[in-house]
């Protein structure tokens, strides 16, 4: 180790005293030879010192290599030479760099996006000793159970947070009330997790009603008021004192870009929290798990679990790190990760096309540099040395291309950070260039230099000196390498285009898809009540009754109803073993649940196929009735008429029998992609705990009544936050996957097509142009122009055919798994997709062949001949 250090130090010094080193070596050897000569003379020997010594030049060469960084210095020289070459061919350099910049820009941007979305670190102290915990298979537990576990002191600290529906809050600002997304955290959350605060302080134990603002909320809603600390916000009717503001790069523990407006203490007894623990230094997750399980068994004694016999809080216990692959797996969002994997694959293909472009450019240039290379080979340059020099050139291209690509990356990331998606939770991405991106782009640069440069470099030096020295390049076989590149590029772009186009078609298909209800003539009013304001179910029932009555009285409104779940926007999944009155054998079914007031089906225009809608008489106290969809009816009762039949849930306890009074036509419930979902509706009953009311209103022109609806509801309760949207606009969430997919993959497909077209055009045009002389000759000898054209076209289209065939074959195969991202009505082997792709690439190839071929035909045969 020390030897290596000495070595580098000595060589480093020698690097700056190159001339000194040279004279030293010279002198040392000369001294030796002189001494030897002298001695030999004295001894009377006739031998020359050289005979004893060997070749001093070789020795000197050896010594020089020892003292210098020859490989690195050569490399540096190669780079400088390459830079000179590129400066002299600005057109070539620009084309190659542009290709690489686009490819690398797209590639690194998707890399950044993936990293940010799936692998970002939350803003916290020492994330490696933080762990998220779940007990009893529950993601959240109530405050009493949380306190029990916290006071067991099994970890260094145990905190909790909640960001779900219950964590919404109404903010009264002037005369308006807004619904905000809050993060309700236990009083020790900031200390346990170690969340940094930009201004003021964090929430601390024994704090009363205080609030910490997100940077986004502070800037967007409070105009970045510098004196905000100490002011109070009216939240759910109570004043909360602002104590702190989070930094702009705050990332929540939840991740995925989730960005709440406020952090407030989880002070209500009804709050529920997800657990996060600070493990003591050195405690493994296995040890933490064991402690947690032991504590859960204690918890069983104090708060017996209520979901069946043999249930224990210790079952379904998980201890998960706050970032990384393991967390993704435990959150069960691997399909999500698969989508990003696919994106990475797609941009990998885009980059591959860009590299092939550069490759063909280098090939074309290599053939015009044949003589230069041949002369260098002839005067004794090693082949490896020349390959290295050519590679230095492609490396330089790749480095400059990566630089430009990173600029593109920064710009695109900025765009993505500003994008606002129609999600139920506010989201903000914080994509920043970091060391991972830098490392990745270095790898990409070197990789693309090799991919683009290695083949042309080897090819350029393969032919021997004699062949290369010949002045002209004559008809040289078939150029299989270049053909292979064209075919490969075609194949890859077919795959890209197919994927992109498939997603674009998926988007158009899902936008025009009938969700099974009428989204054009309906509006959705979301009214969030302050929970503390309504203590009894009666108060809430009155509110709902009054609201529905006033809404129905509005001019232009045809029907109004209320439901627990707005289709395609929220989801309530159940799984239960159901026992029907026709069989003793329970059937396990997974179904969507919702509840609906009378008129719901008329409002949404979901046909009732059998039986009836809910009636006001189905109210509380009346026998339990349900409406099920066709799929559910079939699942439970087969082909029997389900009307009048009853069924019961078997868990957690056997429920009272429910009578089927209607069968609704199948529709979409949560996603457009769902296949044959089961669904069940209960009559709507206002419970005391219900704080989110979703009114659905039918009007022939919903845009005309939006304002009146908001005013009507606002008059009923000024402390409630009210948002009214046309149903059509509220479908954003449902269209989101297809839109994002289409936007990302469609643009990648287009980028790939653009790159491939340029490359294809370049290569085909070049190979036709190279045949100008031959074509001239043929024409001079009397060949029919049309026949010549056909001959040229045959070659191009031959390549096109092979490339398309390979590409289509691969596409058929690789697009199969994409089905999970597409609406079920669209098949991955959709012929329209493939036909379009073939047509587009065919047109490009046609243009690329025809232009140069016509130009070649127009050349005066005499000119071509004279050249020979």
């Amino acid at each position, binding site marked *: 180790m020390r*030897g290596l250090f000495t*070595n580098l130090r000595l060589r480093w010094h020698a690097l700056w005293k190159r001339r000194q080193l040279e004279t*030293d070596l010279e002198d040392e050897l000369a*001294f*030796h030879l*002189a001494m030897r000569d002298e001695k030999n003379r004295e001894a009377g020997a006739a031998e020359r010192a050289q005979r004893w*010594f*060997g070749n001093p030049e070789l*020795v000197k060469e050896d010594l020089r290599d020892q*003292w210098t960084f020859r490989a690195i210095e050569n490399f540096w020289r190669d780079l400088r030479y390459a830079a000179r070459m590129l400066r002299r061919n600005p057109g070539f350099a620009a084309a190659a760099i542009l290709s690489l910049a686009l490819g690398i820009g797209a590639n690194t941007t998707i890399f950044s996006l993936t990293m940010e979305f799936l692998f970002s670190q939350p803003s916290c102290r020492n994330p490696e000793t933080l762990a998220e915990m779940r007990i009893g298979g529950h993601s959240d537990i109530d405050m009493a159970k949380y306190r029990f576990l916290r006071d067991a002191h099994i970890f260094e600290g145990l905190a909790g947070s909640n960001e779900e529906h219950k964590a919404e809050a109404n903010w009264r600002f002037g005369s308006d009330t807004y619904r905000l997304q809050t993060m309700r955290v236990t009083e020790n959350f900031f200390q346990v997790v170690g969340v940094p605060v930009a201004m003021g302080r964090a929430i601390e134990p024994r704090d009363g009603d205080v609030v910490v603002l997100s940077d986004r909320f502070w800037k967007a809603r409070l105009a970045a008021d510098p004196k905000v600390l100490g002011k109070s916000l009216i939240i759910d009717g109570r004043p909360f004192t602002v104590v702190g503001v989070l930094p702009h790069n705050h990332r929540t523990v939840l991740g995925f870009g989730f960005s709440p407006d406020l952090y407030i203490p989880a002070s209500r007894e009804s709050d529920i929290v997800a657990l996060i623990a600070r493990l003591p230094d050195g405690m493994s997750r296995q040890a933490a798990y064991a402690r947690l399980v032991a504590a859960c068994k204690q918890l069983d004694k104090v708060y017996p679990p209520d979901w069946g016999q043999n249930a224990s809080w210790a079952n379904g216990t998980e201890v998960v790190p706050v970032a990384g692959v393991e967390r993704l797996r435990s959150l069960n969002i691997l399909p999500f990760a698969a989508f990003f994997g696919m994106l990475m694959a797609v941009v990998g293909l885009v980059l591959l096309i860009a590299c092939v472009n550069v490759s063909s450019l280098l090939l074309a240039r290599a053939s015009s540099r044949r003589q230069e290379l041949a002369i260098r080979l002839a005067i004794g340059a090693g082949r490896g040395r020349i390959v290295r020099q050519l590679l230095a050139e492609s490396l330089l291209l790749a480095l400059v291309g990566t630089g430009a690509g990173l600029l593109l990356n920064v710009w695109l990331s900025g765009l993505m950070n500003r994008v606002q998606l129609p999600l139920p939770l506010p989201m903000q991405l914080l994509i920043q260039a970091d060391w991972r991106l830098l490392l990745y782009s270095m790898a990409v640069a070197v990789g693309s230099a090799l991919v683009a440069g290695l083949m042309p470099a080897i090819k350029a030096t393969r032919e021997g000196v004699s062949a290369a020295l010949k002045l002209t390049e004559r008809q040289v076989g078939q150029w299989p390498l270049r053909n292979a590149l064209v075919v490969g590029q075609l194949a890859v772009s077919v795959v890209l285009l197919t994927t992109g186009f498939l997603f674009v078609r998926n988007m158009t298909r899902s936008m025009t898809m009938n969700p099974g209800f009428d989204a054009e003539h309906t509006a959705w009013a979301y009214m969030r009540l302050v929970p503390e304001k309504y203590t009894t179910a009666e108060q809430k029932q009155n509110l709902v009754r009054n609201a529905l009555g006033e809404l129905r009285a509005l001019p232009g409104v045809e029907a109004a109803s209320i439901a627990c779940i707005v289709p395609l926007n929220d989801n309530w999944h159940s799984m239960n073993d159901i026992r029907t009155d026709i069989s003793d054998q329970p059937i396990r079914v997974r179904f969507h649940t919702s509840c609906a007031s009378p008129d719901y089906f008329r409002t949404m225009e979901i046909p009732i196929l059998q039986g009836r809608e809910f009636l006001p008489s189905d109210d509380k106290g009346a026998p339990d009735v349900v409406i099920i969809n066709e799929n559910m009816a079939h699942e439970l009762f087969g082909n029997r008429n389900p009307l009048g039949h009853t069924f019961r849930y078997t868990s957690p306890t056997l429920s009272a029998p429910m009578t089927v009074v209607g069968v609704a036509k199948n529709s979409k419930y949560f996603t457009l992609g769902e296949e044959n979902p089961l669904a069940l509706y209960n009559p709507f009953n206002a419970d005391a705990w219900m704080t989110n009311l979703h009114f659905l209103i039918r009007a022939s022109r919903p845009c005309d009544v939006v304002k009146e609806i908001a005013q009507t509801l606002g008059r009923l309760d000024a402390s409630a936050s009210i948002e009214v949207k046309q149903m059509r606009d509220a479908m954003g969430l449902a269209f989101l996957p297809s839109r994002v997919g289409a936007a990302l993959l469609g643009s990648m497909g287009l980028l790939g097509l653009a790159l491939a077209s340029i490359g294809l055009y370049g290569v085909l045009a070049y190979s036709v142009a190279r045949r100008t002389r031959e074509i001239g000759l043929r024409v001079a000898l009397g060949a029919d122009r049309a026949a010549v054209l056909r001959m040229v076209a045959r070659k191009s289209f031959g390549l096109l055919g092979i490339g398309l065939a390979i590409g289509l074959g691969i596409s058929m195969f690789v697009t199969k798994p994409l089905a999970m991202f597409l609406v079920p009505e669209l098949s991955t082997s959709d012929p329209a997709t493939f036909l379009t792709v073939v047509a587009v690439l065919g047109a490009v190839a046609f243009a690329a062949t025809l232009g140069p071929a016509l130009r070649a035909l127009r050349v005066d045969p005499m000119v071509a001949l004279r050249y020979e």
Partner: protein
Amino acid sequence: MLVLKALARGPMHGYDVAEHILAWSGDVLKVEEGALYPALHRLELRGLLASEWGVSANNRRAKYYRLTAAGRKQLAAESSDWARLSGAIARVMEA
């Protein structure tokens, strides 16, 4: 090892090292003298030798090598290794 051994006697230039080795071995180890220099430089770059330019007995500019502390340690280690190895070989040959 031979080079280190020679230099253990004190600083000397390359020619002297060659002469010493030649003399010790009774002209048996007569290799190309040129090969000595790469070896010397390699040892120097490994930090086992240090060098400085001086003036030789006949008033010429010459590069003098001497052992460094690391070089001395290396020599000791190598000679004990060698003693063990040659002893073992000798025993094998006598057996």
